[in-house]
């Protein structure tokens, strides 16, 4: 099982859950399982089958956009983190 961490801004779509356990061997499959459990999330996280530009997706600590995107492999004890894009750093 892979754990997906849900940011506060999306928890209204998961009945308040902070994390959701899913199956799948890629980020895409894991997200499909998540959307099956919480259908309203699909349109908030993706746009036309691609990740929304307002959402960053990480497998553990690594942004999947710079790896294989939605095809990035997951498994074992991996955690997928969904985070809204935010201004950060030592501004």
């Amino acid at each position, binding site marked *: 099982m892979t754990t997906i961490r849900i*940011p*506060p*801004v*999306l928890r209204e779509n998961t009945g308040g859950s902070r994390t959701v356990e899913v199956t799948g061997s890629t980020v895409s499959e894991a997200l499909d399982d998540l959307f099956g459990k919480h259908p309203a999330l699909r349109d*908030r996280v993706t746009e036309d089958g691609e990740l*929304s*530009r*307002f*959402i*960053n997706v*990480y497998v553990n*600590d*690594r*942004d999947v*956009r*710079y*790896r294989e995107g939605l095809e990035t492999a997951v498994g074992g004890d991996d955690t997928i*983190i969904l*985070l*809204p*894009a*935010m*201004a*950060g*750093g*030592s*501004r």
Partner: protein
Amino acid sequence: MSTAVAPASDLIAAIGNTPMVELRRLAPHDGVRLYAKLEGNNPTGSVKDRVARAMIESAITDGSLVPGQTILEPSSGNTGISLAMIGSRLGHPVRIVMPDNTTPEREQILRLFGAEIVFSPGAEGSNGAIRLAQGLADADPSVFMPYQYGNQANPRVHFETTGPEILAQVPDVDVFVAGLGTGGTLTGVGQYLKRERPGVRIVAAEPLPGEQVQGLRSLEDGFIPPVLDESVLDDKFLVNNRDAVIGLRRLLRDEGIFAGLSCGAAIAVAVRVAREMETGSVVVLLADGGWKYLSADLWNRDLDELEDELEGSLLW
């Protein structure tokens, strides 16, 4: 042989040309050389001196900033302090919009340089400060807002100064690591290094914000800084506060470098990337010194206790 440089004509002219030091003890193995660019050695103690100077100079040149005009900017610390110093030198009043949950040193330093502070709700994070500043600027057209997140002078100064300095100091640089804030450093240095040294990798260290400071009412309030050129990035790592503090402590203990919290995150990513390489040179940009974080005592306190506290504040 002396490497002393000629006197600068004033403090603003002394910005940049910061030291590069090799981190022999933090390098994970003998095949990789790890170097740190010490931006905390700038006049007000951070890389933002470069950005503030560039934004003000370009605004004076194009006429958007006129003598005596007030400068207004959202900043959780470093950029505001840089603007306050430079504004005080050039005769511009400076007003900074800052979240109310940063460290007290920032307020103290801003006031020393004569800046006025407008606090934004800490729970809304940086995005809240940006929104408030934009509202104030819209309501008062007499102010000039440099707006570091969207000002092309920000990445340009890194393309024109930070990047060339890095290549001159470490000609065989293979990987460049920096924290992701406005994206100015990564974009400007990244574009320069990729032009001069194709194959170089540009790696971002991104803060994992505490839930209490995520502060978004909707996803569409989310924010991708206009100056960030995402195509220049080759990898991006999320760093939590705990790992950033551990990195910060290792910098001090192993290398004697007293640095700010984002530097702890950047070094954590740099060491991780270096560990995965067989040979090569990694340059990490350390954005600021540790002075503004002293009151939070990041160096001595219990990590668990600190982690809980950092969850609700905005330190980098």
